[in-house]
């Protein structure tokens, strides 16, 4: 590895570095800000992220291996980078008024969001299990801290603790899996793994390692039965961070799944070992997530279970191991990120200061106190339930058709049935908002300009993706092309 390699590698990682640098700048800048100039945090963060977005798009092109095959720059990475930066931008918009209201330290908060984002980006561009592990750890540790940042709330600290224990537990399992794969193969490169496993016999230890990796990553995606941390953590964390967690780390974990299983362990001999496992996991996740969500009294917890269920839908696409499946995962991640951030955005405004108002009752009569907000919430609920013409419908449509094409009829059937079940609890929110009388003793929710922007963008995105699904799907298909080139 000589100087030019180093320079080329660094050039390909410029989007990541931009995000990291922005985080560091905010960290230092925050020390010099007074309470009146505090908005500079958001401004600097947005500038950095928009720059990173542009730079990330500029990386599109032929796949290149960087840093002695530790990282890869290809279109899949570009797609994910754009998604992650978008999620970070939306999170920033949501947080701007939120953290001021909840009295959360601003500089560190934004810096951690940005560092976590850089972790997501490194996951997407990892070409080696080691890079993947370090990147996952970076994003995990950032999110543990973010979950505990609401220092006036004990629940926040407890959420951080629970997240930390189970996250670290899963990291240890993931690392053990990586060690076993290393022992069986003699290296940890995902690229070489794919080549080496073409024809040869599969060593048993490799399958053991693969199983451990599934468990480790399964915790991060929160598929059933590795989901038990999600409800409590999502419930206790600051709402803006819950939104971030439901979109970012989840998408990053799916990026890891794509990299490891569609790129590394994709050979047919190996795939026949993991596809059945994935089928079972996906089915369990969809059933449990949707059924338990019905029983929830808090909308925040309901959305937590809904996020588990949606991970299940995306998981269905992973069992196909073909281009349409991979592309529909990407599409679904974008769609879900927008819906989820939008829904949580509404939650932050209705929750009011101190974050106490999460029950269904708090949404009674929202249509009369704030009709626009109610309409947006209804849109997000319909999108999450999968009604046309929203992105939720298109996403599920692609996923289930990909599953049917590969002969997974049962899985598709379970998906459709559970989607029908899910209408029950999403519709309950809408009914609350439109059918009940408001509690007039308290003032209506206050929507700040930044939160308004966020809601507008996410709603527009949800509708756009639903009406013109082809646009993003084509991009997604283009991005995953190379995984199936051979």
């Amino acid at each position, binding site marked *: 590895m000589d100087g030019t390699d180093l320079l080329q590698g660094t050039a390909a990682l410029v989007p990541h570095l931009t995000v990291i640098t922005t985080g560091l700048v905010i960290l230092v800048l925050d020390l010099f800000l007074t309470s009146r100039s505090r908005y500079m945090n958001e401004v600097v963060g947005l500038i950095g992220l928009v720059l990173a977005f542009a730079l990330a798009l500029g990386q599109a092109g032929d796949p290149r291996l960087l840093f002695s095959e530790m990282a890869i720059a290809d279109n899949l990475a570009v797609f994910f980078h754009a998604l992650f930066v978008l999620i970070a931008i939306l999170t920033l918009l949501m947080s701007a008024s939120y953290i001021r209201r909840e009295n959360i330290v601003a500089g560190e908060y934004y810096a951690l969001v940005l560092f976590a984002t850089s972790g997501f980006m490194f996951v997407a561009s990892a070409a080696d299990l080691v890079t993947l592990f370090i990147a996952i750890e970076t994003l995990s*540790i950032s999110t543990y801290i973010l979950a505990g940042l609401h220092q006036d709330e004990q629940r926040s600290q407890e959420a951080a603790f629970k997240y930390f224990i189970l996250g670290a537990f899963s990291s240890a399992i993931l690392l053990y899996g990586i060690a076993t794969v290393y022992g069986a193969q003699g290296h940890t490169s995902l690229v070489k793994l794919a080549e080496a496993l073409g024809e040869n016999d599969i060593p048993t230890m490799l399958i053991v390692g693969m199983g451990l990796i599934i468990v480790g990553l399964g915790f991060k995606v929160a598929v059933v039965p590795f989901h038990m941390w999600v409800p409590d953590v999502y419930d206790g964390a600051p709402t803006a961070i819950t939104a971030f967690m439901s979109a970012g780390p989840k998408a990053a974990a799916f990026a890891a799944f794509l990299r490891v299983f569609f790129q590394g362990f994709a050979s047919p001999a190996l795939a026949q070992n993991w596809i059945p496992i994935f089928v079972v996991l996906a089915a369990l996740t969809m059933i449990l997530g949707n059924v338990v969500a019905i029983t929830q009294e808090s909308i925040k917890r309901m959305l937590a279970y809904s996020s588990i269920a949606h991970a299940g839908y995306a998981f269905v696409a992973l069992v196909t191991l073909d281009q349409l499946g991979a592309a529909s995962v990407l599409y679904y991640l974008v769609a879900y990120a927008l819906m989820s951030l939008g829904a949580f955005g509404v939650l932050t405004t209705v929750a009011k200061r101190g974050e106490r108002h999460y029950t269904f009752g708090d949404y009674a009569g929202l249509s009369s106190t704030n009709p626009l907000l109610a309409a947006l919430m209804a849109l997000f609920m319909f999108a999450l339930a999968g009604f046309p013409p929203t992105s939720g419908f298109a996403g599920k449509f692609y996923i289930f058709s990909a599953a049917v094409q590969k002969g997974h009829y049962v899985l598709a059937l379970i998906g459709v049935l559970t989607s029908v079940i899910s209408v029950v609890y999403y519709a309950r929110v809408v009914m609350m908002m439109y059918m009940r009388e408001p509690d007039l003793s308290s003032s209506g929710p206050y929507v700040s300009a930044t939160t308004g922007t966020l809601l507008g963008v996410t709603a527009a995105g949800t509708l756009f993706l639903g009406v013109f699904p082809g646009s993003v799907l084509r991009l997604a298909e283009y991005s995953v092309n190379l995984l199936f080139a051979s």
Partner: protein
Amino acid sequence: MIPISYYLMVSAILFIIGAIGVLLRRNALIVLMSLELMLNAVNLSFVAYARLLNDMGGHVFVFLSITVAAAEAAVGLAIILAIYRAKQTIDVDHLSLMRY
């Protein structure tokens, strides 16, 4: 010469012990220590495999994973301290959210 399998067996035993500790213990500090035990066990695997393969990569992974473990320990202890200040207990059962 001891076969590498023996080392891997010790590593697996320690890993399982650590996992049992994480799942069954209720004292937050001991849970954290069990986590460290698990990471240590993985490191032993890495070193054993590195010796088997005659490859320095394994040692580098140990390096990185030790750093990760140190970072995790620092953050974990900070969270435990914060919880202790608020509730005067580190018993996992006394935390309202903590029902596995």
